């Protein structure tokens, strides 16, 4: 199993979620993060002083997936979240040693 972490632009969240749903991803966990990367924030002026917000709001998805569909998940995210603009984000894949469903205690791929 794989543990997929994707950093995307916030306004792409709904689209990505639907695309993943259509390839059979039933669950995921989402959080708000700030991203720091090549994409630079705007320079703003607040009360006459310049500042640049180099931490940009991003959304982080965490998806545990079986090895079968992991590649497809990555591809789907990559294609759906893509706006061809800098700052679109990254997808990281880690190996997942085990997964457990709290409600039932079952573990392994059936727990996903």
């Amino acid at each position: 199993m794989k543990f997929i972490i994707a950093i995307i632009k916030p306004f792409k969240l709904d689209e990505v979620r639907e695309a993943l749903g259509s390839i059979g991803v039933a669950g995921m966990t989402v959080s708000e993060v700030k991203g720091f990367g090549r994409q630079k924030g705007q320079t703003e002026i607040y009360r006459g002083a310049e500042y640049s917000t180099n931490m940009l709001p991003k959304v982080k998805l965490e998806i545990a997936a079986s090895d079968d569909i992991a590649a497809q998940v990555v591809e789907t995210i990559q294609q759906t979240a893509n706006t061809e603009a800098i700052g679109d984000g990254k997808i990281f894949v880690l190996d997942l040693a085990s997964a457990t469903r709290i409600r039932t205690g079952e573990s392994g791929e059936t727990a996903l």
Partner: protein
Amino acid sequence: MAAVPDAEVVAGGTAYILNTLLFLIGGFLVMWMAAGFAMLEAGLVRSKNTSTQCIKNIGLYSIAGLMFWVIGYSIAYPGFAEGSLGLFGVSGFPYEMQAVGAADTETGYSVASDWFFQMVFCATTASIVSGTVAERVKIVPFFIFVTVLTAVIYPVVVSWEWGGGYLDSVWGFSDFAGSTLVHSTGGWAALVGAIIIGARVGRYGPDGKVNVFPGANIPLATLGTFILWLGWFGFNGASQLAMGTVGDVSDVSKIFVNTNMAAAGGVVVAIILTQVLYKKADVTMALNGALAGLVSITAEPLAPSVGQSILIGGVGGVIVVFAVPMLDKFKIDDVVGAIPVHLIAGIWGTLIVAWTGDATFVGQLVGVLLTAVWVSLASAVVWLALKYTIGVRPSEEDEVNGLDRAEIGVEAYPEFARS
């Protein structure tokens, strides 16, 4: 317009009631300004210092009331002896309110209503300070400073002018509702405080870099500004001090209009200027613009025409847009912009009375300078004394973690994650 015919003169008792009513309405409107300052400041500090700012504001309003009764009013209105220079005096204290059912009809108004109206002005002065020195002063030294400010420093300034003292009798100084007496006084105390206390940790980087600490809650700051705007109708309007004649109430009306228009001028100018200069209209500047417009017209809200009022207020808007970053150049850390709004616009408003009102430029300048010297010196003594005894600042760690943790133990928004 016609002179007022005999039949239209109001009787003494009615005039007394109406004059008193003006003080009461003006008084509760200005009291409400305490909430305005609280919200403005709570909105412009970072969330980790918000509870502290709330307690400072309700505390300072309370202390001002107590001290103005204990001694402040008696210093402000000492009844200077004939021939005295009119610089300092004290009448009997604590101030004796009237007895139940009693009414000194010779004054033409209830003395308690007058005291109440005067007291809320005193509180306003203290509110100004709390905004500038926010986020880095512990509450105990802050409250001690407020105690001295409202008991002595402010009342002395008042005595020179409204108390019939030196500025009034010698210089014909004119300050209708307190651009200098209230706003500059608060402003000087704030400025001196900001210098002695120093800037917030991390505020100014090396090579002139200004680190921006955005205010945590803009709608709250907006609400505070609207509250202040509303309260200002009482501040300026009731400074007419009488509503018991047809002429007086008409003047109060004119003051309402001029006050409103000066604020409107300040807002519009601040919006246009920031839009032009920065391509974005800075909402905090618009809020400051309103207040600077209001302070600017406060020294003489009756005499100017509407057009002049808009202009006077509009210059207030210019002042904030340029003075706010200028202070940062000098590394004077004024959290809410109280120095441009109250001090600089207060000076501007006072000086312009030489043209619009009944005053000389020199007289106005003397008033501005004398206030500057006294308030700055006195404030410096108090701030320094505090600094070298109990200390004014929290430890750097406490400051970084926020005063709410260190001083209050109650977070302002405990449930909301910071980003």
